[in-house]
C-alpha cells in the first residue's frame, strides 16, 4: 500500500535524531491519535536552515513524511521552509494512501511549529 519511496524513507529515515542546542523545536500531534512529530532546526545568521533533525512516534507514513520533510527544508531559508505544503511532501514520496494524508499534514505542521519556535526565541529575525 506504500510507494517504494515511502518504504525507503521509512526503512532508512534521513535526519533522525535531535539537535541538543537547536535554534527552534516544534512538536505536533498527540499520542492518543498515534502520531507525534518533533523537528529540531539549526538556523544561521542569514535565516538559512543549516541542520534539521526529527523524532517521530507514529506509523510508517508518519516516519517517512518526517524524513522527507527534513530533506525538503534542509539548506532552505525559513521563508522557503514555511512554504512547504503537505501536498508537496506527499508528492515527493510518490503519493500516500488517502488515510495517511494526515501524516503529511503533520510533517508540514511540525516544520511550521519549529520555525515559529525559532521566531519566538529570535524576535529580531525577520522573514521576508
Amino acid at each position, binding site marked *: 500500500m506504500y510507494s517504494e519511496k515511502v518504504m525507503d524513507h521509512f526503512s532508512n529515515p534521513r535526519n533522525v535524531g535531535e539537535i541538543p542546542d537547536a535554534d527552534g523545536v516544534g512538536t505536533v500531534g498527540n*499520542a*492518543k491519535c498515534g502520531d507525534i512529530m518533533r523537528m529540531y532546526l539549526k538556523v544561521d545568521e542569514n535565516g538559512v536552515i543549516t541542520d534539521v533533525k*526529527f*523524532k517521530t*512516534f507514529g506509523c*510508517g507514513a508518519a*516516519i517517512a513524511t518526517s524524513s522527507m520533510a527534513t530533506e525538503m527544508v534542509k539548506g532552505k531559508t525559513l521563508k522557503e521552509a514555511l512554504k512547504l505544503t503537505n501536498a508537496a511532501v506527499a508528492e515527493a514520496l510518490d503519493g500516500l494512501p488517502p488515510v495517511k494524508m494526515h501524516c503529511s499534514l503533520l510533517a508540514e505542521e511540525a516544520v511550521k511549529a519549529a520555525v515559529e519556535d525559532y521566531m519566538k526565541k529570535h524576535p529580531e529575525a525577520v522573514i521576508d
Partner: protein
Amino acid sequence: MNLDRIYMDNAATTAVSPIVLEKMLPYFTEIYGNASSIHGTGREARKALEDARRRVAAVLNCKPNELYFTSGGSESDNWAIKGIAFANRKRGNHIITSSIEHHAVLHTCQWLEKQGFTVTYLPVDEFGRVSVKDVEAAITDQTILISVMAANNEIGTLQPIREIAKVAKQHKVYFHTDAVQAIGAIPIDVQEIGCDMLSLSGHKFHGPKGVGALYIRQGTRIDPFMHGGAQERGKRATTENIPGIIGLATAIELATENLEEKSARISSMRDQLIDQLTALPYVRLNGHRTERLPNNVNISVRFVEGEALLLRLDLAGIAASSGSACTSGSLDPSHVLLAIGLPHEIAHGSLRLSLSDTTKQEDIDYVLSVLPGIIDDLRAMSPLYHDFMEANK
C-alpha cells in the same frame, strides 16, 4: 536478508494444509455434481457432503443434522444472532454479548439495535475475561440470547463459556459462542460446553477460505439465513460448496488430532516469546497469562506505534499483526485493547504474533533475535521515549 518468510499471523488466516488441498481437488473436476441433483453425479456429491457433515459432527460431538455449512465465521455469527433475534422476537428483544467480540458479532448486534432490539455489551476485566456474574445480572425477562466468544481473536483470552452456558440454560436463554479462534487450539465439544450454537471457520485451522459452519442444537428456534433452495434442510440456501466443505472436514479432523500434544508444543513456543519479550523494558503482555489460546502472543510496546513495528518486521521477513489505529482503518485503536483498559497510546503500540502447528523453533529464535533491535530502533526515534527517559533520569 532472510528469504524464508516467517508467518506469525495465523489468527488472521492459515495456509491450507497440503493434505487438505489434495482431498479437495477431485471435488472440482471429478465429483463436481450439485448435491441436490437426482442423477449419479449429484448423488456422489451428496454422499461426499453428508459424509463430511458426519465427520465434522463427530469432532464437535453433535448430531450431523445439527451442523450447517456456511460461507465462514462471519456468516455463522450473523446467522446465529439475527436468526435467533427474529425467530424469538415475541418472547423478548434483549441480547447480551461482550464488548470484546469479533466485529461479526458486535456489528450484527449494533444493526439489531436499529431494528428495535436492545443489547447489553458486557465489560471485561484487565485480562479480557467476561464475568459470569455480570452475565447473570444482565439477564432480564426479555433476554433471548447470550453470545460470548470462546477465545478472543486479538488477545487470545479464553472465556468461561461453560459457566455462561449453565447460566443461560438456567434462565432458558439461548447461548451462542464464536469458536472461530478456538477450534484446533483448545478442545471443543458442544455437549461438554453446553452451548446452543457455535460458529467456526475453515481457514483458521489450515482449511480453505470461504467455508465455515454453524452448530445449532436440535430444537433451537432460529430463522433461516439465506432464502432460496432447500439446501441445509431449508435453513441456508445456495448450492453447497462441496470442495470447501470437504476441505473443512479434513482440516478439522487434522487440527483436532493429538490436540493436547500439539497445544503443548505450540504453547511452549508461545511462552518463550511471552517471557522473553515481556522481559524487555516497557513491554507488557495483553490478555491473560494462562487462560489464553496456546498460539496467541499479544504485547504492547510502549513509545512505539504498531504499524511501524509491523512494517519493520515485514522487512525482516516476519508477518505479524497489530491493533493500532493505523492497521484497523479507523482513528481508534482496537476495541479489545481499549476494553481491557489500555490507554490509547499504549494500545497503538500493540503487536500480535500468532503461531500454528507449522511454526518451528527456529522461527521463534529468529523473531527473538530481530524484534528487540527493531524496538530499540523505533524507540530511538520516538519523541515519547525521549521525553519519558528525560523525565525519569
